[in-house]
């Protein structure tokens, strides 16, 4: 009886794992096959990866999209980490009644769905375009600016700061550091794991962001990876091999982040419940 239960557990978990992994395998296999073979349902690796890659580079703005996505994700991550950690630190280290009230109001923004923001944000950036086209509609800055910080990240850093030993801050002040110095020279280096987890969350959501770039970016030279893939997928005569190659390339950075930093990855996710 026990043995049967055990085997059923293994069979069930194997099926679930297979279903979870299969689309990845299919994507990788298809990126090495010709479009015709993909439609025939071929599940064997082919030899056309380089050819698919060449076609992808020749027929789409892949390099531009990769560079734009990388630029947006890296700048957003650096800015968001700095701004949100300063705020999270500030709210916790310099606690006061008024700042606690401000913090609670900031938290309310976590409830605002992006669906409710897309129209007014678009109008806002359309206004900005009139005075400062460099950061208005159809610029990478317009993608970065609204995501420069989130209430969740501020909350995440504030929670982590609660564990931070107060003595270290005092020691820094005794050494004659000013408040900003204490933050940069003592807090930041000590909180490496928190920063790593926050960086992963921010990088992933920025790299994968779709709806806002879809609205605000309009010209091919400002395209991003999700926009490029979405466009390829919507085509009437899709070249499956080429599209799967694009998806493989788009997934490599996030998959790499996941496998290299698995621990921080889960820590970052859990941060939202603690």
């Amino acid at each position, binding site marked *: 009886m026990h043995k049967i239960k055990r085997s059923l557990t293994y069979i069930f978990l194997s099926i679930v794992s297979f279903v979870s992994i299969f*689309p990845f395998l299919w994507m990788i296999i298809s990126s090495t096959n010709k479009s015709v073979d993909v439609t025939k349902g071929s599940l064997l690796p082919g030899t056309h990866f380089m050819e698919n890659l060449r076609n992808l580079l020749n027929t789409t703005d892949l390099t531009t999209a990769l560079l734009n996505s990388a630029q947006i994700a890296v700048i957003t991550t650096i800015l968001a980490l700095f701004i949100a950690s300063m705020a999270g630190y*500030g709210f916790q280290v*310099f606690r006061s009644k008024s700042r606690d009230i401000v913090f609670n109001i900031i938290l309310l923004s976590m409830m605002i769905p992006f669906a409710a923001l897309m129209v*007014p944000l678009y109008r*806002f950036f359309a206004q900005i375009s009139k005075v400062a086209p460099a950061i208005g509609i159809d610029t990478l800055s317009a993608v970065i600016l609204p995501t420069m910080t989130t*209430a969740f990240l501020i909350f995440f850093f504030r929670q982590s700061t609660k564990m931070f030993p107060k003595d270290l801050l005092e020691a820094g002040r005794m050494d004659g550091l000013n408040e900003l110095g204490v933050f940069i020279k003592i807090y930041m280096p000590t909180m490496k794991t928190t920063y790593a987890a926050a960086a992963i969350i921010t990088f992933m959501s920025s790299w994968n962001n779709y709806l806002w770039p879809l609205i605000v970016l309009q010209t091919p030279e400002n395209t991003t990876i999700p926009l490029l893939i979405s466009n390829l997928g919507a085509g009437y005569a*899709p070249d499956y091999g080429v599209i799967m190659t694009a998806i493989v390339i788009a*997934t490599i950075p996030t998959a790499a982040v996941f496998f290299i930093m698995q621990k921080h990855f889960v820590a970052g996710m859990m941060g939202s419940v603690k």
Partner: protein
Amino acid sequence: MKEKKSGLSLHKTTGLTAWSFIIIAVSIIVLFYFYPMIDALLLSFKSGMGANLQFVGLDNYKRLFTDSTFITAVSNTFFYLIIQVPVMIILALFISVLLNDSNLKGRGFFRTAIFLPCVTSLVAYSIIFKYLFAADGLVNMLLMKLHLIADPIQWLTDPFWAKITIIIAITWRWTGYNMIFYLSALQNIDKSIYEAAKIDGANAPRQFFNITIPMLKPIILFTSITSTIGTLQLFDEVMNITKGGPGNATLSISQYIYNLSFKYNADFGYAATVSYSIVFMIVILAIIQFKVAGDKDA
């Protein structure tokens, strides 16, 4: 007196320093969250094409109740919610309980494999699912080879099956994500509780319903609310798998707002009204969450 004064001024400077730490973040949140929300509220009382907006009072709100596309989008969203969220949560719970057994071999592999879908971007996995579930796609080929179906299922072009495809896709993407939360909560349950239950003769299902479920209640509630909020905002999948079709059979509220604003002749006023309907639903959910979480503390 003098001492008091200098104490006060020191307090003032620390106050200024403190505010300088948070001012940038607060300004960004106000500028990109709260200001747009106020703008949207004002917009929701106006109507017209593009920039030609006129005050129409509550007309937009009245229009919601007679707008059949809006009603379709809301009922689609609730269809996804009612089926997808419970199925995913039960599946994730079941998997976590199986994986929590320390005698199980290959736990690490199973856990990583089931979590893997979370590393894909929503757009990327949507395109993969669109092709897998095409009428002549791999899923139909497989089902027909196994003789489970005689004719291909119209996964993307039949109104019912298209909704099911969206539900399968979301479940694939998010089950592992929820599983991680349950797994870590399970590790915090004291093993001796199960030992005691075993001695009392409680079998596995009874242990599951009488110990595991009550102990995990807060985290189950948390994941249900986040999944519900996520589903209320569903966009990327519907846009890339079915484009809301066939007809409007899979249209989500977010996609309807997008269509109203950026696809047809822009009616920002009415789009803002529709977006406030999502805000309204999320606020209600948040209040429920707050109430239940509050009960726990009391």
